[in-house]
């Protein structure tokens, strides 16, 4: 038995307490509960010419914080009081409701369509302010401001980057008069403010963000053949960067944004190529008779993870981005595909199937252990949140494809509601 184990044993025998006569009592707390942190976001106060604020920020913030999984907001109906000024806050009320944190705020009209927004975050049990901001915004910026406030609160409470101000790209299909319409949409991280950036009666697939968040690459079948486009968001201009014979698929920007990894089958077999976006040179980096597809770059740009069925069934492999020997990465399960590196390079998310159930799994690159995060049957298209905390993915709900998010520890899982039809292939912006 090691000294360490003996020590542990001793501690457990002693019963985790030191007699008072010898030293001050110290109680060991080694366990806790697994729960989201309770926080109350009180509807913001309003001062202005109209009856109410053009946008109540509190529900947006509540939704953001709840969606994070780390925080749990108090339903407005359970609030005893709804203060909007610090001197009206009675911390005992919020303690009685078990809330650890409290957010109050006010919106006041400065001039027409100009508002001052202020908010404060309190630690209820300490009874002190933890954060406070005042800002002047236009009416159109109110929703954005709410997300920004969510980020500030989230960052303060978790020490992690907030992603409420980020955006999502995804594909929807809607059926209209026996015709299917495919749309590439970009929306706020909460699914609001969707904007269609491309639509077609032919499939649009595999949207992916450039590292600077200014461009999106995607596959479109608009000309009855697959082609890869790179579209600049600011002006809507796009470029067809690949339209070879056969497959043009699975685009993925290199971390420096100068190259695009993609899948082509122009030479017969389906392989991974790297396209230099500046000079359009093309380099083939995998060679196998089977399928090699779905490349994704490591954050350092040196490695590419991809799907290959060279072993008979689809599994993840890695290959140096400048070409070289492929190495098999996954061995668990009979189907592992669409690997994606997290931004810190510590994890790879993938579609993992065992006995016919397709689920989202994350491999810890340090230990090579695979942790299955979801329990669906048809989960696919995992995409890391920019802070690496969540994985957004597509799943099936009834007869519809929906978007869901899961925390990388698998604790928190939720569906994102989008009411515009079938939603799939989410891609989280940087």
């Amino acid at each position, binding site marked *: 038995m090691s000294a360490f184990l003996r020590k542990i044993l001793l501690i457990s025998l002693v019963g985790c307490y030191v007699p008072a006569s010898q030293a001050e009592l110290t109680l060991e707390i080694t366990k806790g509960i697994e729960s989201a942190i309770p926080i109350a976001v009180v509807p913001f106060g309003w001062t202005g010419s109209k009856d109410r604020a053009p946008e109540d920020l509190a529900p947006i913030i509540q939704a953001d914080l709840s969606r994070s999984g780390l925080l749990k907001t108090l339903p407005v109906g359970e609030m005893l009081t709804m203060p909007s000024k610090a001197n009206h806050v009675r911390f005992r009320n919020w303690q009685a409701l078990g809330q650890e944190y409290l957010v109050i705020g006010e919106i006041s009209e400065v001039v027409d369509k100009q508002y001052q927004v202020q908010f404060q975050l309190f630690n209820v049990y300490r009874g002190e302010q933890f954060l406070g901001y005042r800002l002047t915004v236009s009416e159109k*910026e109110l929703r954005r401001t709410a997300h920004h406030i969510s980020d500030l609160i989230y960052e303060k409470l978790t020490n992690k980057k907030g992603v409420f101000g980020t955006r999502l790209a995804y594909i929807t299909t809607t059926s209209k008069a026996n015709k299917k319409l495919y749309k590439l949409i970009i929306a706020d991280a909460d699914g609001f403010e969707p904007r269609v950036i491309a639509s077609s009666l032919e499939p649009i697939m595999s949207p992916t963000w450039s590292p600077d968040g200014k461009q999106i690459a995607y596959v479109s079948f608009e000309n009855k053949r697959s082609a890869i486009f790179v579209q600049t968001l600011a002006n809507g201009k796009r470029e067809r960067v690949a339209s070879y014979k056969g497959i043009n698929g699975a685009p993925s920007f290199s971390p420096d944004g100068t190259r695009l990894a993609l899948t082509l089958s122009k030479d017969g077999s389906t392989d991974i190529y790297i396209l230099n976006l500046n000079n359009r040179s093309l380099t083939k980096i995998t060679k196998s008779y089977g399928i090699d597809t779905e490349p994704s770059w490591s954050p350092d740009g040196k490695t590419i993870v991809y799907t290959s069925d060279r072993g008979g069934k689809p599994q993840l492999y890695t290959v140096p981005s400048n070409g070289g020997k492929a190495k098999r990465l996954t061995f668990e399960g009979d189907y592992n595909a669409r690997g994606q590196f997290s931004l810190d390079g510590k994890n790879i998310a993938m579609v993992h199937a065992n006995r016919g159930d397709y689920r989202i799994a994350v491999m810890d690159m340090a230990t090579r252990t695979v942790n299955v995060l979801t329990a669906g049957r048809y989960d696919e298209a995992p995409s890391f949140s920019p802070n690496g905390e969540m994985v957004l993915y597509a799943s099936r709900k009834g007869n519809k494809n929906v978007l869901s998010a899961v925390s990388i520890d698998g604790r928190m899982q939720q569906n994102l509601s989008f009411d515009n039809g079938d939603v799939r292939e989410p891609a989280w912006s940087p």
Partner: protein
Amino acid sequence: MRLNKEVFAIALSIMILSGCSSTDEKDSGLLDDVSAVDNEKDTSTSGYSDGSLLSGEEFGSNVTIDARGLGPEFSDPTNPLSKGVIYFMYDSSQVRQDFIPVIAAHSKYLQSHPSQHIILEGHADERGSREYNIALGEQRAKSIFRMMKMQGVNSNQLEIVSYGEEKPEAEGMDEASWQQNRRVEVDYQGR
């Protein structure tokens, strides 16, 4: 004030972003501010929309056989040529025995009609990842392609495209639907 600027910057980027929305879902309030950008967007996105509309017409359900210049043999259920879809097993691109006569019939027809050409449209069921399914659909189409070539069809008459799981025949999430989706459609393009 720093925050204010930040918020403003983000808001601005969203405004610009909204400028590239298609005309289907525009936010007029935001578009007012970026009309210059809007014009540019219109050209790129509308052309792209037109393209899809065109192809949509081509793949409409009410397309007549005649439009493709095909004879009545394609409408005769007893003729193998009436079978324009070849089905596959799960995660497989192996041509099933029962479809070999169908493929042979199409090969024969193509050989006798050298001006005809077909697109072999590979498909997969919805399970698994989409890009992998694209590749899988392509492999299925390639299986047919190889077989037809072996049966004497000129490769100029053959074209391959894979839609993977993007164009399912049946929408259900069950084996009955999936069976219908794991397929290669033989699409006569006319002259």
